[in-house]
C-alpha cells in the first residue's frame, strides 16, 4: 500500500503527495535523531527526603557516567556550572507536561574550575566561597554527594513527591560548546529521580 493512500491523502495532486512524503521523512529523521540523543550522563541515586516543618532536606548520591569528559573539559580550562535542582510535585491533570504540578523548585549552582598553575580544582558556591581541591577524586567526591539540600515547601504540604536532578548548565558554556552540548556525547545531565514525600 502506498504511503499517501495509507494516510488517506487525496489523490488529486501528486506534487502535494510527494511533499507530504518528504515532510514525513524529515519528521521521521528528526524524531529518530531525538531518540538517539536521549540517554543521561549522570544518575541521581538513593534519594532520601527528610521532612521538616516548612521544608524537606534531601540527601542523595550521584553517579557520574562521564567523569572523564568532565575532567577533560575542566583540565582544558573550561569553567563548568554544576547545578543541583529539586522540585516538589503534586499529581495533577496534565502533569506529564513539564512544569505542570510543580509547586516548589530550588536549584543550587557551583562553578568548578581548574588552576593549572597550582594543579588545583576549585568549587565556588553561590555565596562566592571557594573550596580548593588538590585531587580530582576530591572533586568527584564533592559532586557525587548531595547533602542537606533544603527544598522549602508550602505550609502543610504532606503529599506529592520530590524530584532531583543534576546537570552541567549548557547555557553557561561558550557558544560552540553549547551547540555540542545538544549532542548525546556532550549531554552532561541526569534525568529526574523521584522520591515520595514522607508523611
Amino acid at each position: 500500500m502506498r504511503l499517501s493512500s495509507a494516510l488517506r491523502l487525496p489523490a488529486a495532486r501528486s506534487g502535494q503527495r510527494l511533499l507530504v512524503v518528504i515532510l514525513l521523512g524529515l519528521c521521521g529523521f528528526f524524531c529518530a535523531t531525538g531518540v538517539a540523543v536521549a540517554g543521561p550522563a549522570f544518575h541521581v541515586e538513593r534519594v532520601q527526603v527528610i521532612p521538616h516543618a516548612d521544608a524537606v532536606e534531601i540527601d542523595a548520591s550521584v553517579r557520574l557516567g562521564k567523569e572523564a569528559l568532565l575532567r577533560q573539559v575542566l583540565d582544558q580550562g573550561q569553567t563548568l556550572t554544576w547545578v543541583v535542582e529539586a522540585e516538589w510535585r503534586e499529581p495533577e491533570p496534565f502533569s506529564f507536561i513539564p512544569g505542570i504540578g510543580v509547586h516548589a523548585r530550588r536549584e543550587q549552582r557551583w562553578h568548578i574550575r581548574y588552576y593549572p598553575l597550582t594543579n588545583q580544582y576549585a568549587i565556588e558556591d553561590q555565596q562566592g566561597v571557594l573550596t580548593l581541591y588538590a585531587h580530582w577524586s576530591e572533586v568527584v567526591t564533592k559532586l557525587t554527594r548531595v547533602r542537606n539540600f533544603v527544598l522549602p515547601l508550602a505550609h502543610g504540604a504532606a503529599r506529592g513527591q520530590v524530584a532531583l536532578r543534576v546537570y552541567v548548565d549548557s547555557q553557561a558554556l561558550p557558544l560552540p560548546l553549547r551547540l555540542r552540548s545538544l549532542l548525546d556525547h556532550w549531554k552532561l545531565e541526569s534525568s529526574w529521580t523521584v522520591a515520595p514525600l514522607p508523611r
Partner: protein
Amino acid sequence: MDRRPPSPLKNWLRALGAGTTEEQLRVGPRWDAVLLLLAIVAFLGINFFTSAGGPLSHYFVPMLVISAGIVLFLLSLVLISVVALLLRLRRGEVGSQLATRLVVIITLLSFLPAAVVFGFSWQYLNQGVDSWFSSAVQSALDQALNVAKAGVDRYRNSTLLAAESIAQALVGESDSSAVITVIALRDQYRLSSVTLFSSDNRIIATSSDNLSLAPRLPRQEILAMEEGHPTAAIEPEPKGGLLVKVLIPVLSPHLGESNRMLYVEQPIPEQLTRAAEAVQVAYTRYHQLMLMREPMKTAFQLSLAVALLLAVLSAVWMGLHLARRLTAPIARLAAGTQAVARGEFIPLQTVASHDELGVLIHSFNNMTRQLARAKQQAAAAQEQAEQRRLYLETVLGQISSGILTFDGENHLAEVNAAATHILQEDLFRGSALDDLYDGTALEPLWKLVADWVEHPRNGMQRELQIERPDGPQTMIVHGAHFADDAGSRGFVLVFDDISTLVAAQRSAAWSEVARRLAHEIKNPLTPIQLSAERLRRKYLERLGDEGETLDRATRTIIHQVDALKVMVDAFSEYARQPQLELRPLDLNTLILDVLDLYRGQESGVEIRAELGAGLPPLRADVHRLRQILNNLLRNALDALQGGVESSDGKHILIRTRLTDAGPTKMLELSVLDDGPGFPVELLARVFEPYVSSKVKGSGLGLAIVRRIVEEHGGQIIADNQGLQGGARIVIDFPLG
C-alpha cells in the same frame, strides 16, 4: 458539487508555493512574498549577531533551530513550486518551458556565486581556526607555565623551609617563651604571618604583618594534613594574588604531651603573582580554544550553511515565483488564442500594468472584441441565408413545377418534390447529367438538356412528350444558366406537366365543336324530318306500289334525322354550361334506385352492389349523378353484350366505400365488369370525346361522365383491373 472556497492560509501557502490561485493572474509582485524575503534577510542579520558572541549569543541555538525550520519551510515551498512546474511542463502548458528556463538560470546565477563564496569561506574558516593553534605556541605556553610553577614553588619551598626552622626552634619551648620566638623568627624570615596553636585550636602565639587580632586558623589544611606531615599549599586570595600556606607540627619533647601546630602564611610577591596568573590565563585560554576548536568550526560551518541555504532557497523560490508571474500573462494569452481558435471570443482579464504585457493583453482584447463582433455578424448573415434557403426550399417544395439545378460540373445539385412527381423517378443529388441517360422514358428530356448545355444559349423553352405506359406525358421545359458562389456556371431546369392542360384544352375545343355542331345541325333537322314526313303522307298513298322507294327513302331520312337528333342532344349535353344543384344525398340509395331500373331487363347480366355501410351524405347534383350511373352501366352492358360469355355468366359490380386521400376524406364509387376491358391503346384517352371502342355510340358517354365528375371536384380513372381483367372505372368524390 458544492465547492468550498479554500482557507486564506491555504491560499496564501499555495500562492507562496507558486501554485494555481487566482492571485497568479497578477503581474506585479506579491508584497507578502517580498515581506517574507525581507524577514529572512533580517533573520540572517540577527543570526549573524547572535553567532558573533556577546549578549545575544544565548539566542544562537534557538535561532539556529528557527533557521532550520525556515530552511525546511523554504525547501517545501521550492519543492511544491518545482513539482507544480514539472507538472505544468508535463502537461505541455504554454509558458512552462520559459518558466523552467528562467528558474534554471536564476538558480544557477544564485547558486554558483553562493557556492563559490561558501567554498572559500569554508576553507578560510578551517584554515583561520587552525592557524590559531600551533605546537610552538603550545610548547611555549607549557614552558611558561612550568617557569611560573617553578617560581611559585620556590616561594612555597622557601616558606616551608622557614616554617620548619621555626618549628625546630620552638621544640621544647614553653608557651610563654614561644611568643617571643615566633615574633623574632617571623621577622628573621620575613614571613607574613606565623601562628602557633595547640591541638585544641588554642592560639599560643601569633605574629603578623596586619593588625588583625584574630588570626585565621587553617581548618582545611588541618583536615588535609596526613599523619602529621607538614603541608604547604598555594591558594589564591580573595583580593587577588597567591598565598603560600604552610602547616607544620611542632613536636613535643615530653611523652604524652600533644603536639602543637605552626601555621605560616606568606604571600607570593605581586610581580611574580601577576606574571604567573597571566601565564595561567593564557595557558587556560589557549587550551579552552583547543577544546572549542572543532565545535567552533562546526558552529561557523552551520551558520554558513544555513545562510547559504537560506540565500539559495530564497533565490530559487523567488525565481520560481518570478517565472510564474512573468509567464502567467503569456499563458493567459496562449489560452486566449486557443479559445479564439475554438471560436470562443472571450476577452482576458485586464491587468493593471502598463508594460509590454499589459499593452499586449489590451491589444488582444481589442482583437477578440472585433472578432466577436465579426462572428456575430457572420452568424446573423448565415442565419439570414439559412432562413432564405429554408424559405426557398419550402417554396420549391410547395410549387407544382418541377425544378432541377445543376452545378458548373453538370452534377445535380437540387431537386424538388414536384420534379420527382412529374418525372416519376427518384433523382439523387450529385448525379452527373451523363449518368441520367438510363434508357428510360426520360431520355428525350436529358437529351434535350444535354444538347442545350453543349450549345449554350441564353435560355431554353421546349415542349416535349414523354411516352408513358398510360399514354404520352406532355411537359414544357424551361432552362436558364446562373453563376454560383464559386463563380462556376450552373443551370436550372423548370418544367411543368401540361398533360392535363392539353387535355383540358382539347376538351374545351371539343366542347366548342360540339356546341357549334349542335347549333348548326339541330336547326335544320326538324324541317328535314317534317318535310320527309309530309312527303310520305302526301305521296305514299298516291303512288301505291310505286311508292316503295319513297317509303324506304323517307323512312331512312326520318330514322337518320332521329339518329342525328340523338347525336346533337349528346353534343348539347357535352357542351352545356355547368349548372349544378348541389344537395346532400345518400349515394347508396341513389345507386339502388338506378339499379331497380336495370334489374327488370333481360340482358343476361348480373348486376351486384357492394355498398359501404354508414357512408356520409354526399353533396352533389342528383340528376347528374344519376346520369353518371346510367352512362357507366350502359357502357358496361354494351361491353358485356358484345363479348364472349364466360361459364359463370356476365357480371357488373358497383362498389362504394370511404377512403382517405391525404387530408380530405373521399367517397369512392367503382363500377367493374368482367368484359373485355378497354383497348390498351385507347386507355389513356377513354375520357376524350369520340374515343370509343363501340361500333355504335357517340363516343361522348365517358367524356360527359368525366365532365360531371370534375364539376363535382372529383377525380376519375379508368383501367382494366375490373372483374377478371375487365374494365374498371373509379370515381372519387370529395366530402365536405
